[in-house]
């Protein structure tokens, strides 16, 4: 019933309809888009899963046939830059393993996946989310299973998503220019490292383990949360001046905070000073990082869609009007800073346990520039934008790694272009309505006759 009433989310007509109406022939791109307009998210996830399994079972064989030295790790980009002669093979590999299987299985299964999506759409939203999140995890898990490098890139990307989302809360939704994010990250990273090493590690700085190692993974979330809370306590140092200053002045205050945190840690010998701490237990496994990332997206998306969260936008656009309309602007600013810092702290803790090493040098201006690049590339004031920005900048920078120094010319160039043509980012000012995204698509091929 509901299916029929629904206005098409995507009003692009299908190919059949167009050819019947005898309109001008579509261009190639439009044809492709029309063909895939009816594939729901579930369909894409099924497609990606298919591709991942094809790579898992036939990847070695196909890469051998294509004269590739081994299975290309990041979509063949690394191979292309290292050995330009292998570009055709790498492209063929990507086409055979990813493009064709994903496209084919997504499109062919659209009839079924749309039906399933329609059933899920009628049920509770939590169940539907859980299934999608689970499928995505399965795909990522088997994709990362093939090489440790992939696993590392994936974990760092997820941490970057958390960082970008949390800074978007302050710089995007609230419209302040805060530079203190690596500082929050450092607070979280160091707090959780000290906690885990103090209680569970035989470490030269913190003495023998106090608790049995078997408890470790269960206490790890607690350590991360404490790290996050310490970071949000630190955020008060920036939040309270933000009551009175805005813009450039607050940017300078927050930058000062970043330097204070960094030099404070450098001068604290009991946490290793500038040499940092190493020897973390390996608790940041893929499922752990993934679950924290999903939790971060869920909480932040909940927040920014509530009236309390919209208050951030109100005070960004006009603070005086927000006050006159009963918005408690001080509380709102504090909440935004503390929530952002909390997630930055958690991300920092995860980062420390992924790298199994922290030093203060990691949390400097360079890191800030990376986070800001991901934020402004993806888009202000948008959860999808943050996810997109973090994933794409991270992947681009990994893919361009063989260019070495030139990488730092290419990435800034991309950013400059984005800033010229889309000043607030590629996917700015979007609502992330999960229900709407997971909905079955009833245009074109997916129509379940």
């Amino acid at each position, binding site marked *: 019933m509901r299916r029929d009433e629904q206005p098409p989310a995507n009003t692009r007509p299908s190919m059949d309809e167009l050819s019947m109406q005898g309109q001008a022939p579509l261009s190639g791109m439009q044809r492709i888009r029309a063909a895939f307009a009816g594939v729901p998210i579930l369909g894409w996830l099924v497609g990606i899963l298919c591709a991942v399994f094809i790579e898992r079972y036939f990847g070695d064989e196909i890469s051998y046939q294509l004269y590739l030295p081994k299975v290309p790790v990041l979509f063949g980009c690394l191979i292309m830059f290292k050995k330009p002669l292998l570009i055709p093979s790498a492209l063929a590999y990507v086409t055979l393993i990813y493009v064709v299987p994903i496209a084919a299985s997504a499109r062919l299964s659209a009839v079924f996946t749309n039906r399933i999506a329609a059933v899920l759409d009628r049920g509770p939203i939590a169940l539907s989310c859980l299934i999608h999140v689970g499928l995505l995890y399965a795909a990522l898990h088997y994709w990362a299973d093939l090489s440790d490098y992939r696993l590392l890139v994936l974990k760092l990307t997820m941490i970057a998503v958390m960082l970008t989302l949390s800074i978007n809360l302050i710089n995007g939704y609230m419209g302040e220019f805060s530079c203190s994010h690596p500082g929050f990250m450092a607070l979280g990273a160091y707090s959780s490292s000290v906690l885990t090493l103090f209680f569970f590690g035989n470490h030269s700085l913190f003495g023998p383990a106090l608790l049995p190692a078997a408890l470790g993974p269960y206490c790890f979330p607690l350590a991360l949360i404490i790290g996050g809370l310490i970071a949000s306590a630190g955020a008060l140092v920036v939040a309270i001046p933000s009551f009175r200053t805005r813009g450039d002045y607050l940017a300078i205050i927050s930058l000062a905070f970043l330097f204070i945190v960094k030099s404070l840690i450098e001068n604290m010998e009991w946490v290793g000073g500038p040499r940092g701490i190493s020897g973390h237990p390996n608790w940041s496994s893929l499922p752990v990082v993934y679950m924290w990332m999903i939790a971060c997206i869920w909480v932040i998306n909940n927040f920014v869609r509530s009236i309390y969260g919209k208050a951030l*936008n109100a005070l960004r656009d006009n603070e005086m009007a927000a*006050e*006159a*309309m009963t918005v408690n602007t001080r509380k709102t600013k504090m909440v935004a800073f503390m929530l952002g810092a909390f997630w930055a702290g958690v991300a920092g803790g995860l980062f420390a346990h992924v790298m199994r090493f922290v030093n203060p040098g990691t949390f400097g201006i360079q890191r800030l520039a990376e986070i800001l690049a991901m934020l402004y590339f993806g888009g202000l004031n948008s959860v999808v934008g943050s996810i997109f920005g973090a994933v794409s900048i991270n992947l681009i920078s990994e893919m361009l790694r063989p260019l070495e120094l030139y990488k730092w010319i290419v990435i800034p160039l991309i950013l400059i272009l984005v800033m010229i043509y889309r000043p607030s980012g590629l996917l700015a000012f979007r609502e992330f309505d999960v229900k709407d995204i997971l909905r079955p698509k009833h245009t074109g091929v997916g129509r379940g006759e």
Partner: protein
Amino acid sequence: MPLLHVSDMTYYFGGLRAVYRYALTLEPGEIRGLIGPNGAGKTTVFNLITGILTPTEGTVEMGGRSLIGQQPHQIAAQGLGRTFQNLLLWRHMTVEEHVKMAHYSQLRYGLIGALFGTPRRIAEERRIAENSMRLMEIFDVARYRNLLVGNLPYGAQRRVEMARAMAINPKVLLLDEPTAGMTPEELIKMIGTIRQIHRDFGVAILLIEHRLKFVMELCRRIQTLVFGEVIAEGTPEEIQNNPKVIEAYLGKEEIAACNW
């Protein structure tokens, strides 16, 4: 007991005396006009009452409680809605979000609800959405509800601002030049809207206005402010014929004569 009671309110911008010994007693359900030439300090009076500025001297009381020293949002939450002369809307927000936003002080679900999307939050936000819809219909902006405010015609933007001010459930509504920049048709519509608010919600209204005709139409009593001081107070007829008011608006006869 008067709803809003202001006495001896004085304010200095540095050395400049912006408002001097301003007094106002607003009874429930009254519409009061505040007129005066440009720069007389009318908007400053509003900013002082709503807590954006703090008076140098004097008292501001609402329902017997002093408003001085409170944050603007606390004052607003006690039932003091206002609009702004130069339309302070939030340009990245839709009309519906504007009206919902002004329910902020009525939210009870707290941070936990905001972060985790509890059932209580869903119920409360649904109630607020219904109330916002009702207000948007009253102010005839419901059809724009999903548009960003910047895309609306000017008159509609004014009405959004009023709908937003009414969403905080005010007992007193301060309107700062509600007809500035309006066409005559929009002006007539605005008179109707203000009358309707006054009738349906029973709020007391304090109105700043330049167009005397508009004030004469709506208000029983009018204050005239010149250089921060109230020089005349009375019914529209009294004000119209008061020589001091005429002098403030048109200049002195003798001076005009001297120039010849």
